[in-house]
């Protein structure tokens, strides 16, 4: 459970600090990051680099699907799944 909390806060902090065009926009755990245009290709690649650096997670090609990255909640679920694998 501790791992979940840590991941959520750390990932949320990263997303909020690195999302594009967030003026007057409140990001929460379920905000759809791609739907809202908050992450472009560079942002997405940087997010993957952050996950690798922070959690030593290597994203495989077949994991690069919207379900794994569409929101903070989705990213946390993905990270926890990778960490427990």
């Amino acid at each position, binding site marked *: 459970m501790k791992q979940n909390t840590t991941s959520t806060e750390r990932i949320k902090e990263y997303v909020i600090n690195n999302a594009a065009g967030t003026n007057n926009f409140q990001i929460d755990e379920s905000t759809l990051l*791609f*739907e809202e*245009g908050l*992450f*472009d*290709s*560079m*942002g*997405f*690649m*940087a997010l*993957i*680099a952050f996950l*690798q650096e922070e959690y030593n997670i290597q*994203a*495989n*090609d077949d994991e*690069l*699907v*919207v379900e794994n*990255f*569409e929101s903070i909640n989705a990213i946390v679920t993905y990270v926890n799944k990778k960490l427990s694998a």
Partner: protein
Amino acid sequence: MKNKPFTKNIIKLEDIEKTCNNIIEKLKDDVYNKLQRKGGIVGISGGIDSSVTLALAVKAFGKENVTGILLPEKDSSPDSAMLANKLAEKFGIKTIVENISDALDGFGCYRRRDEAMQRVFPEYDPKTYKSKIAIKQDVLNQNMPSIFSLVIIDKNGNQKSKMLPMNEYLQIVAASNFKQRSRMSMLYYHAEALHYAVIGTPNKHEVEQGFFVKYGDGGADVMPIGDLYKSQVYEIAAYLGVPQEIIDRTPTTDTYSAEQTQEEFFYQLPFELMDLIWYGWENDYDTGDVAYALNLKPNQIEHVYKTFERKMKTTEYLRLAPIRDYK
């Protein structure tokens, strides 16, 4: 004003001759009067865009006032020069061949690119492997930004692919962009030596979706096909008599050593489909109307609309002139 009903033929040119004449007249006015130049330089690659641009330039200035420049380098496909020569022969223009490989070596283009590729695939050796960059996401069925993969192919055709980390992706693209920027420099050398204008070759999609290199192929004095959809470029190609082999050739980037289509590197859709969805997007057509005409689902069109929005936004900097309002 209410949009006309969306159909598969909505962007088909109604009067090709009139469209061509309008472009030709404007090209003459821009080059002779605005730019005060007496002819045109066109970099010809054997692709459809540069071929149509050249054909329009010949109509505008006459074949004696247009020079085609071939700019091969060591990763170029031999087909490019062969087709460019066929085009030049067809339109009766003078050509100059400028091999830019030594200039690229001087810039460290190949070395910088290969270093980044070797960090992804340590076994990659440019002498024995071919390489390219590809996008794997399915734009119709997923709304997410592009992630790029490096693909290497050995002598026996065995292929390996790996997602590109950001730093390696940026270095490969930055190094490869020396190609387009070196070509631009050479085109301007010839243009200035002849007091001609550089006639740019990007089409509407390349300009608006940002599929060009700033101060590379985006560096030109005029862009006569810059407002034409790719399918309209093909219509004009047939009308102006561009050789059929050029019309039949799959659009490629001709930038990486492995064969790479524009679709796999950037657009993620066949151009016929992309043209129509782009038209629907820029004219605010309902996704349901576009989906019905194209036999797709509304959410698929919605995904592509989102991709277009993202590309327009993220490539805005490419279209910006230097910002100088600092007073």
